[in-house]
Each structure stands twice: as structure tokens, then as C-alpha cells.
């Protein structure tokens, strides 16, 4: 029997297919589901609410234009949208010709909140899930955690991360792989 995440992914894949066919209502439903996490990702990557909004617009324009090419065999719908958002932010950061000083995932983000964004009210379930993720990352070795954060949110290439951390590229790749797999293992453990 499909789990709730699989059901949600299937529904979002249908919304993408409908958006690709020009269905504005489906596109609005996708926006309702994805805009807050993608906007939060953009805020985290570029560190500026105004720029993040511009980039969110650009990313959703790409979602609209490219929805018809989405292939569910290659990625989950949300992962596909995250990739679109990350690419948009990374292109922007590279044009800006400097990389942001990334902050740890565990850091309180209220400094960003004060600049104008409205914090989303989150369900208890979503909050618990976030706590699990944060806990898993907090428990990981510092180098592994830093490499994963840079890989996810800085826009740096692996070679650039290696340079920043003063480690060989192979070591950095290994830390990133280990970080993602450790996170996966934690998240798949049954809740007591």
C-alpha cells in the first residue's frame, strides 16, 4: 500500500503534468505546496529576502515552462522543483561573483525572519520531522556536517568545498555521501 509521501508525490506528479499542459489551476496548487519550502531554500542560499523572491519567481517560471518535460522515473516531483530552485540560486550566486558565507543548519534563523519574511505556521507533524532532521545533522561529525551544508546550500562545487575545508575532493565527496546516507538511515528508523 502506498505511504502518504508516495501518495503526495503521485498527486504532485499529476499537477506537474497538468501544468505542463497549460492548466493554471494545477500550477496554483503546486505553488501552494512548494512556494514556502522553495522560498525558504532561496532565502537560505542567497541570504536576502528581496533577491529570494525574485529567484522564486524565476524558478516558478521555469517550473511552468518545463513541467511538460518532468519525468517521474528520474526524480520525485519535489526533488525536481528543489533542483530547479537550487540551479536558479546557484546561477545567481555565480553571477553575483561571490559565494555566501553559509550558516549552520542548526542556527536560529530569526535574523533572516526580521528582514521581512513571514514565518510559516507549521503542522506538528512537519515540526517533528524537522526536529528529526536537525537532530540527525547535529549528531553527525563536524566535518561531515559542514561538507553537507555547503553541498546543499552554498552553491559551491565539490572542488570549491574541498578548497574551503582544506581537504581532498575525494574526502569531501565521501563526507557528503556519508552525510546523506546517515540522514536517510535516521529518517527511515521507525518512530517509537
Amino acid at each position: 500500500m502506498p505511504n502518504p509521501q508516495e501518495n503526495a508525490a503521485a498527486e504532485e506528479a499529476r499537477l506537474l503534468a497538468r501544468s505542463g499542459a497549460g492548466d493554471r489551476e494545477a500550477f496554483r496548487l503546486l505553488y501552494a505546496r512548494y512556494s514556502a519550502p522553495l522560498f525558504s531554500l532561496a532565502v537560505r542560499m542567497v541570504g536576502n529576502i528581496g533577491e529570494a523572491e525574485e529567484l522564486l519567481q524565476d524558478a516558478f517560471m521555469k517550473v511552468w515552462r518545463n513541467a511538460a518535460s518532468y519525468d517521474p522515473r528520474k526524480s520525485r516531483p519535489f526533488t525536481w522543483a528543489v533542483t530547479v530552485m537550487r540551479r536558479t540560486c546557484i546561477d545567481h550566486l555565480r553571477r553575483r561573483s561571490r559565494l555566501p558565507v553559509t550558516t549552520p543548519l542548526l542556527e536560529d534563523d530569526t535574523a533572516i525572519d526580521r528582514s521581512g519574511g513571514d514565518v510559516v505556521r507549521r503542522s506538528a507533524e512537519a515540526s517533528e520531522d524537522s526536529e528529526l532532521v536537525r537532530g540527525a545533522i547535529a549528531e553527525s561529525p563536524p566535518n561531515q556536517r559542514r561538507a553537507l551544508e555547503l553541498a546543499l546550500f552554498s552553491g559551491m562545487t565539490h572542488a570549491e568545498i574541498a578548497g574551503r575545508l582544506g581537504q581532498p575532493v575525494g574526502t569531501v565527496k565521501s563526507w557528503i555521501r556519508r552525510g546523506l546516507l546517515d540522514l536517510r538511515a535516521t529518517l527511515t528508523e521507525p518512530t517509537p
Partner: protein
Amino acid sequence: MNTQLEELACLYVLDRLDARERAAFEARLAHDPDLAATLREIEASLDRSVRALAQHEPPAGTLERIEARISGSRQAAAEPPSRGAAPMWAAAARWGAAAAVAVGVGLIAVRSLQRAPAEGRPFVVVVGLDSLRSRLAEVPVQERPRDADASFIQLATLAERFWEKPDDLPFRLDSAGQSGRGYALFDPGSNQGFIAIRQLPAAGRGKEYRLWLLDTASGKVREAGVLPAAAAAGGLYFFSVLPATSAKPGSPDFFVTAEDTGSPLSALPRGKVVLGESRS
């Protein structure tokens, strides 16, 4: 699942594979259920990491602005973004108004490229660059790319061909008496391209080379990126630019300037033009 495949799956999810590696990974994915399962789990890790960030709602009216852009509403395009953020290329547009005058004088346009990318036969714009001038040409391509990835592969293939066989270029790269030479390939449909540097002097201390796209109809300039220091030794580099804000963009021209290292976003091109038409 072996370590190498897991690492490949991580790189795929993090969008760190090049076009060829990605195509090979997806080909394997199609008939390897274990790899597909591992990929799904890594994707779940990424997705939940994103959802674990402190969540912010986008400013009110963002969806309406996106829908207005989809509809091509000029009124919405002119509306300033909320919270006082300046449009990214507003400053460049001010410079562009003056630059447009110079464009008409020295630019050697091989052919008119006024056609909108969505109409007519698909083509890639090729711009020959040396230290004195630009030369524009269009190279027909077999089919219109269905998305940005397909465009990337098409451009990369063409860029590699021109790199290996410069005689296939629609113009001759004349190096006599020039301090720099190269060319840019650009797909107006996906707003991405490659710049090939064949010859370029070192940027010098405190300077970096920046690539710019000039819309020759409106005179608006878009920054296309910073060339790595190693570019002076020659090479092929990918770039992408924001879409043109004009409903009918003109021919894209390119030029490279030497700017102060670390100049801020949206800084105007102020440094010496080292490749492309001189505007001094």
C-alpha cells in the same frame, strides 16, 4: 549498493553531474531497481533537509506576479518587486541606453537575428570576438531543444565541434595583431551558452574578466558571469543569463571586460573591453 554507485546517486541528486554523466546515470537508472530505490532514499534526505529549514512564506502577491509574467503582462513586468528589492538589471539598463548608440556604429552583423527564438527554424547564435570587434552569425540546428538540459547538450556538442575544428566556425578567427580572440555560442531560447577563449592576456592583479550580453535592440546589458582566472590560458566555459525583459529582444552580442575583483552584483561594465567591440 556499492560506494561508487551511492556516491554517483548523491552527485545526481545534488545536480553535480555533467550532461554526459547524467545521461549515463539515467540510462542505468532505467533498468536498475536497486539504484532507483537508493536514489529515492537520497532524494528523501534532500527533500526533508529543505523542509527542515526555517520556513518563510513568500511575500503576498508573488503568485500573481508569476502569473502576470506567464501571461506576458507588461504592466506586471513594470511593477516594482515588493519589499524594496531593486530589479536585478535595472542599473544595467541605464547604462544600456547610452551603449545602444555605439552599437549601431561598429558592430559587424553578418545577419539580422531579430527573429524571436520560438519562431522559424531553430538556430544558435555564434559571436566571434577579438580585441576590436564582434561578428554575429546564426548556425541552424536540427531541432529546437525541448528543455534547458537538451539545449545544454546541443550547445556543448556544437562548442566542442568548433573547438576541435575552428574551420567549421561561420567566420575566421583572425589573430593577427589581436591581443585576444574567442567566440560565444548562445541559445536565446534557454538563455545559456558557452564562451570559448582562444587567446587572452592575464587579467592582472586585482582584476577579473567578466562576460556581458548586450541586447543590440534595447541596449540592455546582462551580466553572464565571471571567467575563472585560468580562462586566460584558454578553454570552453558555460554560462547562463536571466531572460530578456523585452518582449522582442534583439540580436545578442557579447563582450568581455576587465573589472575590479569582487565588484558587486549589478555593477555596470566599467572596465576595459578586452574581447568584443570596443565601446571606449
